[in-house]
């Protein structure tokens, strides 16, 4: 991507209607919805600890 294209992408955000995906604290989702922002919420929870440790162990092995 050229610098000019990158800049255009940033400026496009300022010109566009916000469409938001909220991940984590639900209160931010509610506050955005209250302001009339189009928003969806992702109910996030941490991946199970054991899996993460296993994953890391596997990463090391592979």
């Amino acid at each position, binding site marked *: 991507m050229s610098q000019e294209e990158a800049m*255009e*992408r*940033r400026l496009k*955000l300022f010109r566009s209607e916000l*469409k938001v995906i909220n*991940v984590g604290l639900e209160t*931010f989702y509610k506050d955005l919805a209250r302001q009339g922002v189009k928003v969806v*919420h*992702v109910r996030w929870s941490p991946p199970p600890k054991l899996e993460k440790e296993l994953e890391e162990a596997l990463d090391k092995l592979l």
Partner: protein
Amino acid sequence: MSIVRNLVKRNFFRDSLQLMQLSEEAKKLPGVVDAAIVMGTDTNKELLERLGLLTDEGASASENDMILAVRVEDEARVDEVLQEIESLVLKPPEEAEVREEEYYSVESALESMPDANLAVVSVPGEYARDVAMKFLEHGVHVHLFSDHVPIEHEVELKRYASSRGLFVLGPGAGTSIINGKAIAFANSVRRGPVGIVAAAGTGLQEVSVLLDSVGLGVSQGLGIGGNDVKKEVGGIMARDSILALERDPKTKLIMIVSKPPDKEVLDRLTQVVGEGKKTYVACFLGKTVYRPPKRLSMRIYPARSLHKAVLQAVKLLRPKKLPTARKKISMKLSELRSLSLKLSKKLAPRQRYIRALYTGGTLMYESLLIYRQLVGGVYSNAPLDERYRLPDPFKSMRHSVIDLGEEVFTAGRPHPMIDPTLRKLRIVEEAGDPEVAVITLDFVLGYGAHPDPVGATLDAIEEARERAAEDGREIIFMAHVCGTRRDPQGLREQEAKLRKAGVVTFPTNALMAFASALVVKKGKIRSDKLRKAYKEFIEV
């Protein structure tokens, strides 16, 4: 005879807001005197101890465990009550409220909203990179609220984003205002000609509400996270934000709010500004005075306080409105003097210390800079000078300025802007110290914050007053409400409640710090020193 009991649920997670709500529900159960449901961090265990709610069982919990703590009237009921609390906790959060627009993975949310242009991410810091990267790979800008994000993750995310024309606002970005919408902790601010780049969350809130108050308003408010201006990150997003605001037709003036950037970052940003055309107000909150290079002195206007930055913007954009703006958000030195003198007459000779209890980190920092010049050494849990670090952040000494949003107070707890519990305890504690003269408080309104922060704190102020009165003393309470009339809590309503309770309110944090210093000094500050500080922090 009431009895306290703890139940520990090992490896059990709920986020701090859910826990706060659960605690409130538990307190309402029949027979319950007090209850708290918290993750077993050291801060929370300390809090439980202070509340008289910690037992050996609770003390054994680790930060991955949840503690259910309860005090009940009737010992015979204790097991039953604990069971009821446990079932509250085990109930899936808000199970009744399953909505169409709710998803369980980032991928499914992206599928449902393929034209999403912003993600607001507030997962624990260790997971933030993975979540944020998924959005960047889909061309979505990210506001990253999470803190404790390793700096190498921040650099990786920002480099990736920058090369693709995407913003990563944060990590630890409490506040942004994009296209007039408040993201995370932000206020309802009118749109206007000032674009803000802030590496300081409540700094952005304070300048944006003041810009609103003086009739200017904000085009975009981009919170880039405190680490962005450190050399490890190299100001990647500060630079991208400045470049974008230079090109944004709605932005006439760019305001930068930050602690002083590292030298190499400052040099780099100065170069970027040099290549631009717009006018800047540089509010670098630090011990040293920032002076822009000579060739840019007609484009970069430094300001040593948030208060001054806003008046400077008025002077540059609407010079004719400056007198009105001064009336609205400032005070003359003579006014500050006479108010302070009047207030200090209420004090006994022993009462000579300030206790400033902040929820907003940047507001705390701004006050430290003012106190440093007017009262000298001030203790803090986040001091300007390590010599003045409080040995125990839970215990004030002499002049103390506390940032209750610091990690020691927030690990496993909601931020004090949401949960007033810790500050309320502290207010009452401070009032027990016969040498305390002034207690200052900030109340941050807006989205994300407590629905009625003043109302939730008034009983503690009342209790503190009674405590002092028993001892024949009066404590002076001062407050600054950082908010606008359009905020959900309403600036006017919140200020009115404070005044009704006898609290002296100030339109800016800098004025409150200035006035409280004058009160404890009881008029004994050399007038040249006083005028110098007024000029540096207040006057435009």
